[in-house]
């Protein structure tokens, strides 16, 4: 106990606080800019922490790690771009809320729940760290596999009206996730001899392609401000805080769940937000507003992702095995400070561990407070006509995508995924199902083979496995039964009433496309050895059978006409390919400037002053980012000149 308090005393010193604050501010900035997460922030800080006092350095790193999942909410809510992989579920309801003119409400609710989630996470961490070793060791590959199944079972509740569409989307996600090296054998699958595909498609690309780009395209087609409904900004802020207080049990549950999943190495932040999202959905009586702007859909993942980043410190500190991407970087920071993770962190170095925990709690509070303070001015962005914002957002998306592997492949993959995203969006297919399949694909396959190899057939009799299996069964069976019971009582079943309006002509195109993918991939992988092809074949079967079922349903219900949005969407994707090619070949900076200038002047009719001001501002922003964060851009033909001039200033 005295260690706990002496650590607090140390954290409260001016020196420590000021470095912590520095970490918080940098964490917020990198969180807000899409594509940069904890990893980019760390690369900015690491050179400075070398040789620093360990507790101060840790405080600064903690400040950064803790607030990235807070700051990344801004772009998720305001622009529909997930600021980092841990806030993808926030987009689901946060962005629709912004479209309703309630951006401030969504943001303030997100920040307060982030704050509570982070603090709850830190409290759990401080108790848990002392007893965590046996618990973490109890989660073997078999339990981890069951957890991925638990994650996949979420798809059922996210598929809305059509189970087969949900399954097909999930199967597609699983299949895209198997591109690259097979974990059990090291063989490469579906690479089509393209170097880029050997590593698989990066998560950030999939997130941007499946959510962000399709949203932007559909906004461009309509060309209004993001917030198309009345201005309620003034009330929104307080409303959001009230929403959180009203849903405190949800916040509590999500935070506890988040920190526990974070504590188990192997799953990480990108899964936990989807799981809590679907739990929030399963537990609420009225599901109709989820996906259309339900505040609970913002509160649950935001409480969970901050708690998760606290939880992920458990395996990092105790075992030196990072629980998440940001924790991996934090681990590097610890090593640079000369601290070896391991059991000594809870024996001889317990003071350092408590310094980490106090810093986490404090950083969560400071970060959320700063964000709430910024909410009102920043959410005004949603009232700007969208065509003015579009080039800025496109640049941000390309910027984010390029940080994935820094090659043209990033843009091409983004366009390809976005094509799927546009089709799915305009025909009302559940895009989260695709993303969940993708996120869990590698884990499901890897842990499945590992548990079979380690335990043989006896793996499914392990108690942990049985407990999680029971949880999955409850999750799948209880909500439909509960719904039936409610329906009987009220003579009203919203679940069925609210089946999304589907577009059958588009359905057949998408299902047909998926079927072709299933056949081509199936043909490609068929000759591989068993351990290489088993999992892709399962994904292909799910994908193929569900697509056939969707087509069968379509034939039964024929007669609906195709909307033009899907065709327009595909034209925009073509435009995107051309633009991204120009960004790459002509030079990122030059193209940003010219495209923004021309687009706002001609397309948005912005006037010469406005268009050149925005274009110039964006250029300066990119140059500053490049300098401060040592970020690289595709230089292309012309950027060399711009950089030379910029370097002279």
């Amino acid at each position: 106990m005295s260690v706990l308090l002496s650590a607090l005393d140390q954290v409260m010193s001016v020196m420590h606080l000021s470095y912590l604050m520095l970490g918080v501010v940098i964490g917020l900035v990198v969180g807000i800019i899409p594509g940069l997460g904890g990893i980019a922030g760390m690369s900015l800080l690491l050179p400075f922490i070398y040789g620093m006092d360990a507790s101060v350095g840790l405080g600064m790193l903690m400040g950064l790690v803790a607030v990235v999942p807070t700051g990344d909410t801004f772009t998720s809510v305001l622009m529909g771009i997930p600021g980092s992989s841990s806030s993808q579920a926030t987009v689901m309801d946060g962005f629709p809320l912004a479209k309703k003119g309630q951006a401030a409400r969504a943001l303030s609710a997100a920040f307060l729940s982030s704050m509570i989630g982070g603090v709850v996470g830190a409290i759990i961490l401080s108790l848990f760290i002392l007893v965590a070793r046996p618990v973490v060791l109890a989660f073997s590959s078999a339990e981890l596999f069951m957890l991925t199944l638990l994650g996949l079972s979420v798809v059922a509740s996210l598929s809305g009206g059509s189970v087969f569409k949900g399954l097909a989307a999930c199967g597609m996600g699983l299949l895209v996730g198997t591109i690259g090296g097979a974990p059990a054998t090291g063989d490469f699958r579906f690479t089509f001899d393209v170097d880029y595909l050997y590593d698989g498609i990066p998560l950030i690309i999939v997130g941007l392609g499946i959510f962000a780009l399709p949203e932007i395209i559909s906004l461009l087609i309509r060309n209004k401000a993001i917030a198309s409904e009345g201005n309620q900004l003034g009330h929104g802020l307080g409303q959001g805080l009230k929403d959180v207080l009203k849903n405190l049990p949800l916040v509590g549950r999500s935070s506890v769940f988040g920190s526990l999943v974070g504590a188990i190495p192997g799953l990480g932040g990108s899964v936990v937000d989807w799981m809590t999202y679907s739990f929030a959905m399963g537990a609420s009586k009225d599901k109709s507003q989820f996906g259309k702007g339900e505040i609970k859909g913002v509160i649950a993942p935001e409480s969970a992702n901050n708690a998760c980043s606290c939880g992920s410190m458990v395996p990092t500190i105790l075992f030196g095995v990072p629980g998440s991407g940001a924790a991996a970087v934090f681990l590097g920071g610890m090593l640079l400070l000369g601290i070896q993770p391991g059991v000594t962190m809870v024996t001889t170095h317990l003071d350092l561990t408590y310094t980490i925990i106090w810093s986490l709690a404090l950083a969560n509070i400071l970060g959320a407070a700063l964000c709430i303070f910024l909410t009102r001015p920043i959410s005004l962005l949603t009232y700007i006509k969208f065509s003015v914002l579009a080039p800025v957002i496109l640049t941000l998306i390309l910027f984010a995508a390029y940080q994935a592997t820094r090659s043209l492949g990033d843009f091409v993959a983004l366009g390809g995924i976005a094509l799927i995203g546009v089709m799915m969006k305009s025909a009302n297919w559940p895009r989260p199902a695709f993303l969940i399949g993708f996120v869990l694909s590698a884990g499901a396959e890897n842990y499945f083979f590992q548990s079979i190899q380690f335990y043989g057939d006896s793996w499914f009799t392990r108690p942990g496995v049985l407990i999680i299996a029971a949880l999955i069964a409850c999750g799948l069976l209880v909500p439909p039964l509960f719904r039936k019971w409610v329906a009987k009582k009220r003579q009203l079943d919203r679940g069925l009433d609210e089946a999304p309006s589907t577009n059958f002509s588009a359905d057949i195109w998408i299902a047909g496309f998926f079927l072709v993918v299933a056949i081509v991939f199936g043909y490609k992988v068929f000759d591989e050895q068993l351990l290489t092809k088993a999992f892709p074949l399962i994904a292909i079967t799910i994908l193929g059978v569900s697509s056939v079922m969707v087509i069968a349903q379509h034939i039964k219900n024929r007669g609906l006409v195709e909307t033009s949005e899907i065709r327009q969407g595909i034209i925009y994707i073509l435009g995107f390919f051309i633009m991204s090619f120009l960004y790459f070949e002509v030079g990122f900076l030059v193209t940003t400037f010219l495209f923004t200038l021309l687009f706002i002047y001609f397309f948005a009719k912005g006037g010469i002053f406005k268009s050149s001001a925005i274009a110039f501002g964006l250029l300066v922003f990119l140059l500053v980012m490049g300098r401060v964060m040592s970020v690289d851009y595709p230089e292309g033909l012309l950027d060399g000149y711009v950089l030379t001039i910029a370097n002279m200033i």
Partner: protein
Amino acid sequence: MKKLKHFALSAIAALTVTTAVADNVVPDTVDFTIPFGVGGGTDVWGRFMAPNLTAHIDGNPTIVIKNQPGGGSITGTNLFYKRAKDDGSNIIGTSASTLFPYMLGDKRVRFKLDEWTPILASPTGGVVYVQPDLGIESSAEVSELLDQELKFASQGPTQLELPILIALDLLGADVKPVFGMKSRGAGRLAFERGEATIDFQTSSAYMSSVQSLVDAGKAIPMFSVGVMNGAGNIVRDPAFPDVPTFEEAYETVHGKKPSGMQYDVYRKFLAAGFAFQKVIFVPSDAPSDVIASYNDAVRKMIADGNFQKEAAVQIGPYQNAVGLDIAQYLSDAVNISPEMYTWIKDWLKSEFNYKL
């Protein structure tokens, strides 16, 4: 536009002139490519080396670390090969996972190591250890390992564990590797959970995370990979003087020293993976005085007492080597003869059904 271009060109000219005029041979800003993500082993090593190098190079150039992850370091190394300037302002830090694909003829590899000159090499060692419930009490009873199936949580057949897999096979152990671990750390976790019965860690990880298991009787060290002495022989690792080398373990089991093709292949991958685990390269086309100046800096750095003390904590108790001194050994280590290539290809195929 024309004016702008003129301005830009004159600016470039001005910049070129300033660098040419400077007294110091190594350019003022050096880009240090790390073909791995931030926070990984090679990145931490690079970030430790960069300021120390800066301090020992004349003119104290700024060394900027550029992380370029992907393809298990192949992507970043390919890009470096394609783009690096030959004025000495671009250097790269590689790891075992850069050298192995090169040696195994991975078709993604476009870089050519023989066009680069090493300026620094950092070695590491490593220890193989087993669960106590196998009925073995010390490394002297290594023969007991042979009649049971050993589960080894590994990253993949061509990763850092490759020489260890070859060595265990040479010993005659029945190892069943479980592939797909995200890192060596994940493998260690599987060992701690009791899933894996045999495991291997490099020196620094062994000292920080396994030594406590050994002290608590939860792990028993079997053999280390040893270190190479000046005469080219493998001797006991100074970090683990009580742990026999693989060669000793082999002798305990088979009553003679290891030899033959399989042992030669083992030694190749051991050298590339451990003796030269981390290497800083500069393109050989760089001016010879720049390369010489890098080598001098490394020599001074290695002799610096403060550096030695810090390096022992950060990267293990091993003597770093000046590139000039080890260039020949390194180029020997990474060049695989056609016979050896055929052997390793067949071995990977028959052991793990892995196609090169």
